[in-house]
């Protein structure tokens, strides 16, 4: 019996040693994966895209009921303020009608002047409407997943807009999915114009709801309420997509509130400007303007 006890003791020791070794091995493996990810970013991007493509259908299944619940909550909230909302919209409508008249007049005038001066406009943009199927919002990243990908004509670096303004740009593209990096993400840098003064600047995200304006020539010229629009520098974005308005001008820092409401995004439009942008990934061939319409994304215009 003593031999058997000894054997069991030794076996137990071996087992615990293997278990301890297994933990070490797993930790080493985790660091190995991190190092590989650091060394070979292309490979990681590739794996990421495959994972996104695989997860996208499941996410869509989750997103629909969640979206319905979100909408129901929003509906309830809106019921409470229906009357005030109606009055506000009436007022806004009358104001916008005046603007429409002005815009029509200016458009005619512009067209006439362009005809006179043989002005050559940039390429026309086309849109792909996409549904948001996932948020990649955490303490470290501000983004979202879309249900359209390369098959629908989405390419790296394209602008993503909502009805209100710019939301972000395409950071990763899979066959049937894509990841948007919001303008509020810490990695987002955009060349912009201040609409009133036509001054150039860079708008920088820092994972907070507001953006920061940097590389301004003079902070003094910026006023609260100034609209910030894309400048089109860098090539992949059209000129003049509204981004946000200045809400705070302080010592050397200007804060911008984005027009897009990131907390209730459901559908967005991916703008295909038709020009291979300077910021786009050289490995990705920009989408040709094919007339093909995928089941997920709808090509408009």
């Amino acid at each position, binding site marked *: 019996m003593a031999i058997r006890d000894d054997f069991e003791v030794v076996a137990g020791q071996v087992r615990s040693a293997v278990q301890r070794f297994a933990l070490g091995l797993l930790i080493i493996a985790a660091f190995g994966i991190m190092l590989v990810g650091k060394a070979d970013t292309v490979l990681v991007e590739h794996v990421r895209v495959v994972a996104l493509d695989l997860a996208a259908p499941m996410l869509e299944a989750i997103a629909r009921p*969640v979206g319905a619940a979100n909408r129901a909550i929003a509906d309830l909230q809106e019921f409470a303020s229906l009357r005030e909302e109606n009055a506000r919209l009436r007022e806004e409508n009358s104001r916008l009608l005046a603007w429409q008249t002005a815009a029509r007049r200016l458009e005619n005038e512009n067209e006439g002047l362009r005809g006179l001066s043989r002005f050559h406009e940039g390429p026309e943009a086309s849109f792909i409407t996409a549904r948001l199927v996932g948020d990649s919002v955490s303490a470290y990243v501000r983004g979202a997943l879309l249900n359209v990908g390369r098959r629908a004509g989405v390419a790296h670096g394209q602008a993503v807009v909502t009805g209100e303004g710019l939301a972000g740009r395409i950071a990763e593209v899979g066959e049937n999915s894509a990841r948007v990096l919001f303008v509020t993400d810490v990695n987002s840098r955009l060349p912009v114009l201040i609409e009133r003064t036509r001054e150039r600047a860079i708008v920088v995200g820092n994972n907070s709801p507001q953006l920061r304006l940097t590389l301004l020539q003079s902070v003094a010229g910026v006023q609260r309420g100034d609209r910030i629009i894309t400048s089109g520098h860098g090539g992949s974005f059209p000129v003049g997509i509204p981004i946000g308005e200045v809400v705070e001008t302080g010592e050397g820092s200007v804060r911008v509130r984005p027009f897009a409401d990131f907390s209730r995004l459901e559908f967005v439009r991916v703008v295909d400007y038709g020009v291979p942008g300077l910021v786009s990934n050289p490995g990705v061939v920009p989408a040709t303007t094919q007339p093909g319409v995928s089941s997920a994304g709808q090509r408009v215009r």
Partner: protein
Amino acid sequence: MRVDGTLGTLDRWGRAALPGTVLLFFVLLTLAPLRVPYLADALPLLPALTVFQFSLATPERLPGPLLLAMGVLLDLLLGGPGAPVGVSGLGFVLIRAAVVANRRYLVGVPFLFQWAGFCLLALGFVVLVWSLTSLWTWTAIAPLAAFVQYVVIVVLYPLIGPLLARVRARDPLNVPELSRGTARPGGTAP
């Protein structure tokens, strides 16, 4: 206690696969466009909570390699340019190891002890992810968001933890031999 037949086999398989499936579900749920303020911030920590809760009773059903794979999947899906892939996997493996090593202080004890244990381990997890992400991207990431995430998940634990414990309530392995205290199978609080 052995159940035979097809149903029995299915039952055993189901039990063996349950923790992994729940973990996968929470990893995917991390990306769900849930628009509830604060709650949505804490979603990325739900998988860590699952790992903690299931490691209490049945760590053998969440083997280390599976945890590593789930963590890598979470990092891949959550994305972020330059963010380290595999840091969540490392965190999961460490949580499981810590729970297994300190089982006698966490299983069959009053709920508050368990909660405190989770607070400590989740803090370790958040600090690990934050510091490695900062190191990897070489930027000082504002720690406030990570802290908010941590606070929310700690507050959520009493709501979700017992729910997950209930999922494995009829598990014969629920209370290990080494357990202290007087909790009944499936119970986490007296």
